C-alpha cells in the first residue's frame, strides 16, 4: 500500500511536470519518470512482462525518439500554460474552459464511482493467470490472439515505412 502511494504520487507529479514545463526537454524527462513509475505499478499488478515491455518500449524507444526530435528541432524555451503573448480574451478561451469542464466531470464520476459502486469479484482462473510471466501471456497471444498479433506486425511495418518516407528530405 505504501509502495502504491509512493509510485502513484511520482506518476501524478511527473504527469503534471510534463504539461507545465516550459522547456520540452524537461517535459520529455518528466515523461520518462511517469513511464518508469507506471512500470513499477505494473509489477504490483502481477504483470511483470508488461513492466519489462513498458521499460523497453516506452521508456526506451519512445522517450528516446522524443528526445531526439526535441534536440533536432532545438529545445528552446516555450510559452507555458499561461501564454503572455495571447490577448486577455484568448487567455481563457474555449480550450481552458473545455479542460476545466472535463476535469470537473472526471472528478464527479470518480466520486460517484467510489462512493456508490463496488466492482464485482473476479471469476478468472488464478493458475492460468500465473505470475504475469512470458509463458502465460505468450500462450494466450499465440492462440486466441494470433490474428491481431500478425496484424500488429503489419502495422509496425507500415509505421516504419511511413516514418522513413515522411521524414526523408524532399528531392
Amino acid at each position, binding site marked *: 500500500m505504501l509502495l502504491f502511494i509512493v509510485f502513484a504520487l511520482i506518476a501524478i507529479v511527473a504527469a503534471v511536470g510534463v504539461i507545465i514545463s516550459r522547456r520540452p526537454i524537461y517535459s520529455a524527462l518528466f515523461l520518462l519518470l511517469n513511464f518508469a513509475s507506471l512500470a513499477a505499478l505494473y509489477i504490483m499488478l502481477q504483470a511483470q512482462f508488461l513492466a519489462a515491455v513498458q521499460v523497453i518500449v*516506452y521508456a526506451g524507444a519512445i522517450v528516446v525518439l522524443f528526445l531526439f526530435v526535441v534536440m533536432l528541432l532545438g529545445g528552446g524555451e516555450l510559452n507555458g500554460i499561461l501564454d503572455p503573448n495571447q490577448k486577455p480574451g484568448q487567455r481563457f478561451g474555449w480550450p481552458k474552459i473545455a479542460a476545466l469542464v472535463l476535469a470537473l466531470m472526471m472528478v464527479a464520476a470518480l466520486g460517484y464511482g467510489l462512493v456508490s459502486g463496488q466492482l464485482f469479484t473476479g471469476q478468472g482462473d488464478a493458475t492460468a493467470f500465473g505470475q504475469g510471466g512470458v509463458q502465460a501471456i505468450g500462450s494466450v497471444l499465440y492462440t486466441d490472439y494470433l490474428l491481431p498479433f500478425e496484424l500488429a506486425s503489419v502495422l509496425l511495418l507500415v509505421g516504419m515505412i511511413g516514418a522513413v518516407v515522411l521524414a526523408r528530405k524532399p528531392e
Partner: protein
Amino acid sequence: MVPTSYFLVLSAVLFAIGALGVLVRRNVLIIFMSVEMMLNAVNLTFAALAHHFLQLHGQVFVLMVMVVAAAEVAIGLAIVMSVVRHKDTTNIEDMNLLKG
C-alpha cells in the same frame, strides 16, 4: 493488497492530466507527450482490471496498445519534422494549411 479501484482512480487522474495537456498546451511535441500519457493511463486500467478478474486478455490488449502507440509516435514525429522543415514552427496554431 491495494484495491483495484485505487488503480482505476489513478489512471483516471493521469488521463485527465493528459487531456488537460492536449487542450491547454500549444506546442505540438508537448501535445504528443500528453497523448502518450493518456494511452498509458488506459493501459494501467487494462492491467488493473486484468489483475482484478484474473484474466490475461487485458494484458494482451495492453501489448496491442503499445504497438499502436509506437507506430503512432514514429509517424507523428516524422510528420512534425516535415512540417517544421516546411513552416519552421512547432506551435500548433500556425499549422493551419488544411484550414478552409
